[in-house]
């Protein structure tokens, strides 16, 4: 697909609200498991079912992860933040309200740098607050079933300023956000499982116009691709509406994955519709310098820092460094391999990793250990095995974890670089290819390639090609010289 930047002289103004499920063991306000994918209603209790008289407890790990998200996104953490109740009636919300942070969010005023087409953009993060997820309704044969496993699971909502100007920017932003949260260990960010969900606010205005138009919110987009399609569709729809003299109504819309359109759900809610009140059952969250320092100390290295380390210290190409940083698991694997490899083989480690290991890692297939990758890379750099042999060894060591040099010997994959041995093979090849020899003697020196090829065939590709070339040349040079002397 192609992302549109403007349409009939109108540009989109885009802000996103991203809901991210935190990677905690238990739910936010009770001790039920927050695991995804268990049988419906396996993980519920009177608290998360909102039964009368129950009171919320508070998952400290959820607060820590939410605060870590704020720090990873450059936010200021509020020294004191509180919980509020957001009321709406729906069967997936047993209390009739969601515990959230409306009046005083945990984090404010952050920003995220991201890249579009090689140039850096910035989107401001207005706020990040902690809240609980709702349950899930499943419609089947005209009946509705409720699964409350997710009900009460901790979420953060990340709200941006309207800082994006194209679907491409919005997509790049969400991808960068996803990667940041993934590397910071805050969430597994799986859009297909709903652990990262996106609402997008979009309005359009003539290019060059400063003021904002009326906006629509498109709810619950669950892939980055759909996000782009929804924005492009809205840009065209809203522009056409305006050009035909209509006004854009502030409303909530739904994206249809089938045909890529959006349709109206309802008027957009205002804060008044949610009747926000203070949550009296939970104490305020107090955050001090020590708390922040502890989080910073235990924060995993983010992909941004890794990418600059790979390019600046290891001399990798930026594109390669970004590929390696596609996931924390990938980067950690690579770091382990690099830590065991000498400096001169690091580029080989990187190229073998990206070409051979990473595709398997992505498909969750078994791969050679980082140690074997570094060993195999060293063998290649030292000229003891060919590139083909290196790839073969990577496949074999993913099943049989034995030292690469032993395996290369055992399987006869080491390179033959002994001149005497190679000259023997040259003689064999000459004997077996009289036609080529005849051609050479008639001055067709290109036919030497056939002899080189024959030597490689005899040695199953193990002979060092440069030496073979030299030995073949030497063989015929001798012949020709002898011929001249006669």
């Amino acid at each position, binding site marked *: 697909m192609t992302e549109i930047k403007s349409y009939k002289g109108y540009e989109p103004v885009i802000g996103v609200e991203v809901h991210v499920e935190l990677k905690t063991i238990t739910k936010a306000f009770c001790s039920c498991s927050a695991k995804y994918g268990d049988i419906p209603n396996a993980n519920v209790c*009177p608290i998360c079912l*909102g*039964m*009368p*008289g*129950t*009171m*919320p*407890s*508070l998952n400290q790990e959820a607060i820590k992860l939410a605060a870590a998200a704020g720090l990873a996104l450059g936010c200021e953490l509020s020294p004191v933040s509180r919980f509020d*109740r957001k*009321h709406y*009636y729906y069967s997936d919300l*047993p*209390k*009739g*309200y969601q515990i959230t942070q409306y009046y005083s969010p945990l984090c404010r005023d952050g920003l995220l740098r991201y890249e579009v087409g090689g140039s850096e953009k910035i989107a401001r993060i207005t706020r990040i607050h902690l809240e609980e997820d709702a349950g899930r309704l499943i419609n089947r044969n005209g009946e509705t079933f409720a699964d409350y496993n997710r009900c009460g699971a901790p979420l953060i909502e990340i709200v941006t300023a309207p800082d994006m100007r194209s679907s491409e920017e919005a997509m790049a932003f969400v991808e960068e956000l996803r990667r940041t949260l993934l590397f910071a260990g805050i969430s597994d960010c799986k859009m297909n499982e709903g652990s990262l969900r996106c609402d997008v606010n979009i309005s359009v205005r003539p290019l060059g116009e400063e003021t904002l138009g009326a906006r629509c919110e498109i709810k619950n987009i669950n892939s980055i691709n759909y996000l782009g399609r929804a924005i492009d569709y809205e840009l065209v729809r809203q522009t056409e509406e305006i050009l035909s003299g209509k006004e854009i109504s502030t409303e909530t819309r739904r994206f249809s994955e089938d045909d890529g359109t959006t349709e109206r759900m309802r008027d957009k809610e205002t804060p*008044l519709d949610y*009747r*926000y*009140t*203070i949550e*009296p*059952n*939970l*104490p305020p969250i107090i955050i001090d310098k020590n708390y922040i320092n502890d989080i910073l100390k235990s924060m995993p290295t983010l992909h941004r820092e890794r990418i600059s380390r790979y390019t600046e210290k290891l001399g990798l190409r930026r594109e390669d460094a970004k590929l390696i940083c596609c996931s924390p698991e990938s980067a950690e694997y690579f770091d382990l391999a690099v830590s065991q490899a000498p400096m001169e083989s690091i580029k080989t480690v990187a190229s073998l990793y990206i070409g051979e290991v990473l595709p398997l890692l992505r498909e969750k297939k078994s791969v050679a250990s980082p140690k074997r990758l570094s060993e195999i890379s060293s063998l290649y750099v030292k000229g003891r095995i060919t590139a083909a042999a290196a790839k073969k060894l990577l496949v074999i060591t993913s099943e049989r974890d034995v030292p690469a040099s032993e395996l290369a010997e055992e399987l006869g994959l080491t390179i033959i670089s002994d001149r005497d041995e190679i000259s023997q093979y040259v003689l064999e090849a000459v004997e077996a290819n009289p036609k080529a020899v005849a051609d050479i003697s008639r001055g067709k020196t290109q036919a030497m390639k056939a002899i080189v090829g024959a030597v490689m065939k005899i040695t199953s590709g193990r002979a060092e090609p440069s030496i073979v070339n030299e030995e073949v040349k030497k063989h015929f040079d001798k012949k020709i010289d002898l011929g001249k002397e006669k």
Partner: protein
Amino acid sequence: MSIDAVNNHNSIDYVSEVVNGGQISAREICETALNNAEKDICGSFITVTRREAISAADRVDKAISNGIRLPLAGITLAVKDNICTAGIRTTCASAALEYFVPSYDATAYERLIAAGCVPIGKTNMDEFAMGSEGSLSHFGITRNPLNPDLIAGGSSSGSAAAVSAKIASVSLGSDTGGSSRQPAGLCALVSMKPTYGRISRQGLVEFAPSMDQICPITHTVKENAMIISVMEGADFKDLSMRRDLDMINPTPESKIPERMGVFIPTGCSAAVVNAVRKASMLFSESGSECEPAELPEQSYAVCVYNALSSVEALSCLARYDGMKYKSADLSSVKDISSAREIRGQCFGKEVKERLALGAAALSVNDAALYRTAVDLRKKIAVETDALFEKYKVIIMPTTKRTSYRFGQYYNEDDADLNLVYANLTGCPAISVPFAGASVQLMAARGEDNALYSAAKFLEDNNS
């Protein structure tokens, strides 16, 4: 020992003593109490818990025969029907919870049972604790055992009536804006609304959680202190609890406060004014410095209370849609309007009015009423704190008048003025019978022991 000797004796430490000593069994006391509860003509109970009472009594007797002493052995307990009791229906006197049987106990209740109390029933109340006459229950009205033509008060009507009629030794009520102190006052009983956060609210069905507290209703000050001392203490399930409070002394000594403020609002009956004057004279004769005092912001304190309690009720009652704890025919729920209709059948008129007030406070003029009320509540708390810089205790009426006929003062809406301060500020307040009416004492947060001592002084000198 005869059962009459036990029943006619008011003191629960005496009853506990003879049960612990094996002179009478908990089972025998409980059978009598159950029979009386079933014969009750005042409508005190929604559910009499015969099965649970007998098994609890037998457990107590067994423990005692095994040489274990229990601090409240065999004390019969009536529990307001908004306090969760595992396996026993907990209705809040509402159609919305007609079939709600919790799987868990309220922490405060659980501690009393562990101490040897025997639960004989769940008491009648105004629906969801909203009301002050005991006349707004889905299960019928509660009458005053002292005179069945009069109200027992509310909302903890049945809890006061059951103790006043000597069916149960003690009871639990809840107090959001006077709901325990007021019926105790009208039934000549003692009730303390302790400092907010002293007693776990876990298991108390919420009305306005920033003000709700579970409160004992008893015949004497000492009994009251004994019950609270068993119920109080940290509960990790209630994060709004305070951890910095002195423990309650279960045997309060009679002691007068040094300085006292005397507050008598306008519109009190002669009997009430007389009782408060007499009490303050008694204090000053014994050495307290007493002077007239005014509670802060009297012109709008009740409004602030009404706005905030209604807003919180709107929030807390949002979960009752008529489909979960009620026997609604769910097959008739096809769309939002039929769901609305089912919810409409959940609540009585008073509850609906308060929910409407809550909704208005949260929507009209950008929720100005709610936001203003939140600010004014803080102001009232600050000014009340300042008052307690000056006075150790403030003495005032519990209610403006002694008990009256149902609906007699229906159109008066400022009846709660002297009651709501303790809830708005979280301060402790106790109602004690004195000189033919009831007197309320209020102190700064955490000063519950000082209140018990002052109340004990009044009780000891009541003629």
